[in-house]
Each structure stands twice: as C-alpha cells, then as structure tokens.
C-alpha cells in the first residue's frame, strides 16, 4: 500500500467508524471502475477514427468490422490531403482564427475594463443588455446580418468572419470583467498618482495582471473561429476561400463512401485543436470554471 493510500485512509477513519473502512474501499473500487469504464467509452471513438484512417479501401468495408488493419495505409493521409486543396483551407482557417483572436482580445479587454471600473449612467442596464444578448439564438440575427454584409459587398470575402470580432463578444467580456473586478483599484490609483493616464495604466498595470484570463479569451476565440461552420457556410462560395471545416464537410460529400480517406481528413482537421488543447489545457479549464460558476 502506498503512503498516499494510507493517508487517505487515515483521513477517512475518524469520519466513518468500524465498518466504514471496507465500505470506503469498495466504494473507491466502484469509483475507479466507473471512471475507467467511461474513459474507455470516451476513447473508443478516437481509436476507431485513427484505425479507420489507416485501413485500405477493401478493409474498411469488411463485415463484421475489424479493429486492426492488415496493411497500414499511411498513404491515406497524403491521398486525402491532396484530393482537395486542404493547404489553402488551412491557411484561410488560420487567417480567420488569428484575426478573431486579436480582435476579441483587444476589444473585449477594453469593454470589460469599462464595465468593471468606470461609473457612468446606464452601466447596470447596459451590462444586463450585454448578458441578455447571450440568450438570443444567433439564427434570429443571421438573415439581417447576411443582408447587411451583402449590401456592404462582403459576401465571399473573409470580412464577415473577422470584422465582428473587433466589436467584442458578450461571453468574453463577461469572463474578463469577472477578472478585472478582483483587482484592487488601489493599484491603478497609485499609477494614476504617478501621472500615468488611463490608457497607460490599463496597458502597463491592469492588463499584465489578467494575462491568464486574456489567454483564456484568446484560446476560446481561436477555438470558436476554428470550429465555426455556419458562418463560413453562409458567407463563402468560392472554394479557394473555404475554411477547413467547410472543406471537410465538402470532402464527406464528394468521397461519401471512401471512409478511410474521410477519416484521414478528419484526423488532420482535429489535430490543431488537439495540439492547442494539450499545450494550454489549464487555460481552457480556468476559463470555463470562471464563467460557469461565478455567473
């Protein structure tokens, strides 16, 4: 028995006398069994995805299906990625996602700071309005927004997918405001006394303190833009302007029976999000935690 286990028992003992020890051990076993069982269920789709991507065209249609391919078709990835201009799609997706990150981080930081720190007439009502906009299903705004961008001549450009980010997003403003509220105003007052203007104080004193929250906003807006499907679907017609998500959806339509190639393309489209997730898991979790519980 490891020391850690012993410690757990020592803690549990005073709470649950006599029969508790067996009960605790059994219930811990149940907890682990449930966790492991569910984990396997959650992982199987990934395993199935990767193994399917590596099967040959014959093997993908074997009944009953088999797990491991006899011949590992690494060429599937190359075949899938050259069948459609995926490099072009990836470039478009990256441009859109990066511009969204910049736009959202900058605009939401300003707006959130305005709501958190300044008193002005209508502040409470405007903040309520901001929160209320989160509850409008975006289908309600879709048609008029499309007409607006159509009249501006922005259809089939990346503008409708990037420009709105510079006007803030309710969810991120809310998240950042929660962070700003935790900073003691004395810090800013000290900087102001030293003669720094509001903007300078904001950039040199306040923003460095909320770096984790800014990172969370950056990650969420990257994820939002990268994963978005509806807006690119509506605004982009020209295949050279497609994003990865549009391209993948079209790939499925074009190669609808070549599941090995479709799965190979799916793996590739998933990869960037997976990499970002593993690099920045902490920020994902902190960001969600903050919006979910402090609401």
């Amino acid at each position, binding site marked *: 028995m490891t020391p850690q286990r012993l410690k757990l028992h020592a803690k549990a003992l005073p709470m649950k006398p006599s029969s508790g020890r067996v009960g605790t051990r059994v219930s811990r076993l149940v907890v*682990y069994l449930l966790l492991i069982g569910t984990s396997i269920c959650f992982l199987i789709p990934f395993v199935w995805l990767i193994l399917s991507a590596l099967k040959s065209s014959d093997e993908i249609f074997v009944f009953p299906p088999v797990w491991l391919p006899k011949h590992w078709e690494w060429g599937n990835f190359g075949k899938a990625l050259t069948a459609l201009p995926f490099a072009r799609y990836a470039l478009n997706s990256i441009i859109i996602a990066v511009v969204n990150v910049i736009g959202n981080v900058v605009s939401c930081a300003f707006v959130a700071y305005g709501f958190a720190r300044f008193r002005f007439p209508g502040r409470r009502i405007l903040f309520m309005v901001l929160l209320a906009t989160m509850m409008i299903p975006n289908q309600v*705004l879709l048609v008029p927004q499309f007409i607006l961008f159509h009249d501006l001549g922005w259809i089939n450009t990346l503008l409708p997918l990037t420009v709105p980010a510079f006007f803030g997003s309710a969810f991120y403003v809310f998240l950042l405001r929660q962070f700003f509220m935790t900073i003691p105003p004395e810090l800013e007052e000290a900087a102001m006394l030293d003669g720094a203007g509001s903007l300078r104080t904001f950039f040199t004193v306040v923003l460095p303190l909320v770096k984790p929250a800014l990172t969370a906003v950056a990650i969420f807006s990257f994820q939002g833009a990268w994963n978005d499907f*509806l807006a690119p679907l509506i605004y982009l017609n020209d295949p050279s302007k497609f994003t990865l998500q549009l391209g993948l959806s079209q790939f499925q339509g074009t190669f609808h029976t070549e599941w090995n190639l479709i799965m190979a393309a799916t793996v590739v489209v998933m990869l960037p999000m997976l990499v970002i997730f593993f690099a920045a898991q902490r920020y994902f979790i902190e960001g969600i935690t903050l919006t979910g*519980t402090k609401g």
Partner: protein
Amino acid sequence: MKMKHREALLGYAYISPWLIGFVVLTLGPFVASFYLGFTQYNLLTAPKFIGLQNYIHILKDHDFWQSLYVTFYYAIFSVPLDLLVALVLAILLNQKVRFMRLFRTIFYLPAILPPVAVAILWNWILNPQYGILNRFLGILHLPQPQWLVTPQWTVPSFIVMSVWGVGTWMITFLAGLQDVPRSLYEAAVIDGASVWKKFWYVTLPMISPVLFFNLIMGLIGAFSYFTQAFVMGAGYGGRGAGINNAGLFYALNIYIQGFTELNMGYASALAWVLFFIVLLLTLLVFKSSSLWVYYGGEKE
C-alpha cells in the same frame, strides 16, 4: 463633478466597441429580422410587405411542425441526459481519485473538437453495417438499430452523439463541487447523513446555480443545434435533413428556407418564432429557479 464627468466619458469610450457592435450587429439585425418577418424577400428585389402571411403559412407548414418536433424531441432527451452524465462524471472526479487530471482530459477532450469533424466521425461510428457501435451492440447481443438510415432512429443518433460532448458541462460541475465548503459535509456526517442524503441536502443545493446556468445554456444550444444536423443529415434524404426529414432541426429548417430557397422573409418569421420559444423556456426556467436554485446566504 468634473471628475465624475470624465469618468463617465472614459467609461463610454472603453465600452464603445461593444456599444457600436451591439447597435449594428445585434440590435439592428434584431429589429430588422422582426420587420422582415412580415415581408416577402429574396435578396434580389426589395422586401414586399405581406402582413401576417408568413406567420399564417407557418401554422400550415409541415416542415415547421416537423422541425419543431425534431428539436423538442432532441432537447427533451439530450439536455437532461447530458447534464446527468456530466454531473455524474464530475462527482466521480471529485472523489480525490488518482490520475484525476488524466480522466478529466479524456472526458473533456471531445468537447473542444470541431463539430464538423465530430459529426463526420459519428456518421461512421453509427454506420449500421460497418460502424463500431453496432459491432459492440452485436457482441453484447443487443438490438442493432439502423441509426441515421431509419427515421425513428435519427434523433436518437444525435442524442447518443451528444453524450460524447458533455466535457464543458462536466468542468463547470466539477468547479462547482470543488467550491462546496468541506465544513458542510463534516456537519452532515456528524448529523449521521447517508451518502445519498449528503448529495441531496448538501451537494445538489450548493451546485444548483451551476445546474441552472448549464440548463439555460443547454436549452439555447439545443434549439440552435445546426452544424451536426447539417453535416450528418447531408448524406440522408433528398434535402439533406435525414430520411423523411427525420433530422430536420429547427435551425436547419431556417437555413434551408433562408439560404437555400432564399425565402428570407419567411426564414425571419421562423427565426422569431424560435426566439419566442427560447425566450419562453428561459423565462420558465428563471421563474422556477426560486424553487430549486440556492444562492448562498439568501435563504436559511
């Protein structure tokens, strides 16, 4: 007085990006869509005012009722099921288990993936003949539904898939659970509370605000469910909405009306009906919340 003025001006300056965006990208379109709901408009000629005709047509429109049925069916099952799974997973993770981070990563991972990729993967998983899910069901000697290939199993297919994506909710529940003060549990133990009673009288009230938040977001999400419906429905049925429109979700119907058939006036009317349904459900949850959501220090 002057300071106050300056502060207010600065405040407005800071929030101006959102204020402008709100007027141009939210309020404007919101009002415009209300007006468009009373017009016939195909983007090419000017909107023609037709009074209540769109709304009268909605009542007789078979697609509308079908989409309403599909969406309610999905929401009624997927939202409670997903919340329950998320809560159970969070409770398991909160048991001071080892490898907690690893388990948390596994459960959360699917939630961050692109919905298009997830939908395509599940399209393959749910393949009645060559998919892995029916293979497992077969090994367990359970019935193997035809999933997306039959109308009656189309919505259940989406519900099954939705369970894979409960990660975000699980994280919020877990955070809520970790915020419950230990002293409450200790007090409950002294009073001789059983595990079940501890859950019912301590855990559940303490995380009810999180449950409330997730329920509202889940409902809004279910009623604007689009991407997966579009991607998975694409291969089935003539209109890409599943066999016999069995996967015609409300948002998908709006898309088809507005952007495939270019009935933008009618699509706007449909969107406003959706808005009222979501508003009504949200208000209902809000109203009921005084009965079941506990905010610390409010009661007692």
